[in-house]
């Protein structure tokens, strides 16, 4: 699906390097012109699709599922699927906009705090007697406003998103906990809390996955099949070049942060309903789980590289691994260690491959590598 032209499938081979080729992203987007042939396109289509970072994560996921099905008692029950999907849905949701943000070489560390804030807003709305959909709407709007604060500080003030969102991570969490104190609102409408535990009839798949699938489709189309998506890769690869190519870098990033906030707001509603519990400290620390999964899924922390199917596989891989290890009676500290090693291993292997490739690519050779996006 996300072929080389997106700059995602095999970033190493696709960066045209014609010296100060200012329209790097553009040239990729526009496709070969003037008779240029890209090295990557010399490979057959099936290789370009199958031999990628994303494919290796998907392969790994399938391998883990296969091994767990055979070796781990109770793993092959429908309950496993239901519980697993239900629990990783907030991470899946937030990972969608996070992928886009990291592709543009930014980061949003405040997402889990926005989930907490949205959870409190829903809780207070219900407590105040508002109709539930109104409370949900307000929570999503609050999330979007929180995202707009991040976006404005990053784009209009020009601060690095790492610093900005570390600040708002604390700020939003503080506001959330401040609004509700240490109490929790658990008297939520039963119809809606019950809905989070319903499955698509006849399957072990939770209903909420329909919402996720729809959102994922939208994000995938935007990222991989529209000029907007191309511009995100261009920004991530070289933001000056992107700006000179006519992309409004600031505005694009601003709306990405707003989107991230709104999706986190929605995830906060889901989280609240799933655990029947509106609290300021909900989902504490989840930002790191999201970012770990996005990086595991093949997105480069340096921007310009990554694809959504890899990210989804990354989230699922961490989830499945945790589930299988828990079922095998492995303690949670070991599970955390395994997840950490997996992430380091995956990032390291990508880096080592890129370096090895770089060494092979002699200067002067057509398509020689000017810049290797690591990770």
């Amino acid at each position, binding site marked *: 699906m996300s072929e080389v032209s997106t700059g995602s499938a095999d970033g190493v081979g696709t960066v045209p390097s014609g010296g100060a080729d200012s329209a790097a992203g553009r040239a990729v987007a526009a496709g070969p012109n003037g008779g240029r042939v890209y090295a990557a396109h010399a490979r057959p289509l099936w290789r370009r699709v199958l031999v990628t970072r994303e494919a290796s994560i998907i392969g790994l996921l399938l391998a883990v599922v296969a091994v767990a099905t055979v070796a781990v008692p109770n793993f092959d029950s429908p309950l496993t699927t239901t*519980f697993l999907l239900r629990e990783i849905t907030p991470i899946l949701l937030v990972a969608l906009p996070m992928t886009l943000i990291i592709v543009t070489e930014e980061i949003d560390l405040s997402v889990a705090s926005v989930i907490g804030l949205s959870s409190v807003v829903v809780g207070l709305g219900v407590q105040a007697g508002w109709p539930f959909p109104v409370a949900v709407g307000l929570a999503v709007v609050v999330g979007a406003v929180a995202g707009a604060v991040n976006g404005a500080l990053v784009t209009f003030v020009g601060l690095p998103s790492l610093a900005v969102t570390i600040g708002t991570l604390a700020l939003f969490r503080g506001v959330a906990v401040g609004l509700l104190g240490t109490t929790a609102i658990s008297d939520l409408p039963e119809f809606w809390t019950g809905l989070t535990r319903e499955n698509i009839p006849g399957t072990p798949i939770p209903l909420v996955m329909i919402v996720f699938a729809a959102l994922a489709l939208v994000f995938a189309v935007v990222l991989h099949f529209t000029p907007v998506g191309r511009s995100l890769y261009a920004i991530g690869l070289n933001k000056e070049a992107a700006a000179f190519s006519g992309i409004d870098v600031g505005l694009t990033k601003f709306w990405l942060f707003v989107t991230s906030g709104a999706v986190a707001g929605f995830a906060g509603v889901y989280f609240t309903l799933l655990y029947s519990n509106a609290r300021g400290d909900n989902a504490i620390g989840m930002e790191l789980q999201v970012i770990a999964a996005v990086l595991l899924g093949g997105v480069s922390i340096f921007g310009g590289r990554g694809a959504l199917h890899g990210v989804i596989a990354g989230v699922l891989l961490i989830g499945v691994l945790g589930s299988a290890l828990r079922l095998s009676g492995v303690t949670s500290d070991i599970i955390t260690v395994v997840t950490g090693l997996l992430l380091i291993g995956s990032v390291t292997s990508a880096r080592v491959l890129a370096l090895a490739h770089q060494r092979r690519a002699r200067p002067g050779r057509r398509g020689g590598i000017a810049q290797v996006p690591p990770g």
Partner: protein
Amino acid sequence: MFSTRRNTLGAVATAAAAVLLLAACGGGDGGGTADDGDVSVTFLPKNLGNPYFDTSNAGGAAAVEEFGGTFAEVGPTEASPTSQVSFIETAAQQAVDALVVSANDPEAICDALDEASGVGVKIVTFDSDTNPDCRDVFVNQATAEGIASAQVDLITEQIGDEGQIAILSASANATNQNAWIELMEADLEANHPDVELVEIAYGDDDDQTSFDKTAALLQTYPDLKGIVSPTTVGIAAAARYLSTSEYQGEVALTGLGTPNQMREYVKDGTVEAFALWNPEDLGYLAAHTANALVTGEASGPGDSFEAGELGTFEIDDDGVVLLGDPFVFDADNIDDFDF
């Protein structure tokens, strides 16, 4: 073409490594489902690596060994409201016979417990209860009355039943502490007319604040004979102040503390005795309660069951089993405990 071959190799290598990793870690004994007639009990404390729960789990394991079941201990590394849910779900997938939980949050794990209950898992809470609808039985370590009277008994005995005492509490709006203090005041008034409670100070469960408040109490009331601190943070801070001051051995200190925090102060004579429950007994009783529910020896309010060396217990109308009076730690027994 180099890149192609390398990427293929990389993909294969990564996949192989992870599969090996999983095979090495997984494929264990699977936590034990109970198709062999054994009663399988899974303990889920608030978090792992917590000496208090290590002690209660040891009690649980000892009980399970006595009645010949399978014991497992799982838990999150952090005690956050929702971190226990995935472990409850795992227990439901494994269809263990009973799950013994100390809840991080009374509501957040309720739905997950309901689902586990739905596949036949008996739910016992201990140490920290959930909403009563979400569990079969709660094993309570001590009642408010028991905690209050144990502390009044300790302090009045240590000061010879007359003179001024003060209370060093947690925060002014701490629910548990306030309930205990109210009961202690009533008990003092009714049964100890010569003991005067001069002040209730609040250390906010902060070590430094509690330390400073102890100093202030001793300066304000030169005739003070004793301090009661019904919070583990307060009693440790007060003991630290007393142990280095001229008041050591002169002003009695008691309250609720943990042996590891209080050991040096008991040994150096600052503190004669203090109270808390015994987490090992609590875990032991919780495991026996789980066994009684699984075997059908007890099924609900009004039923009694045997809990090994602790004797016979009854489930009360609220579905609660009470461990008993608080446990008093002193120089003779403190080295038997490590939590």
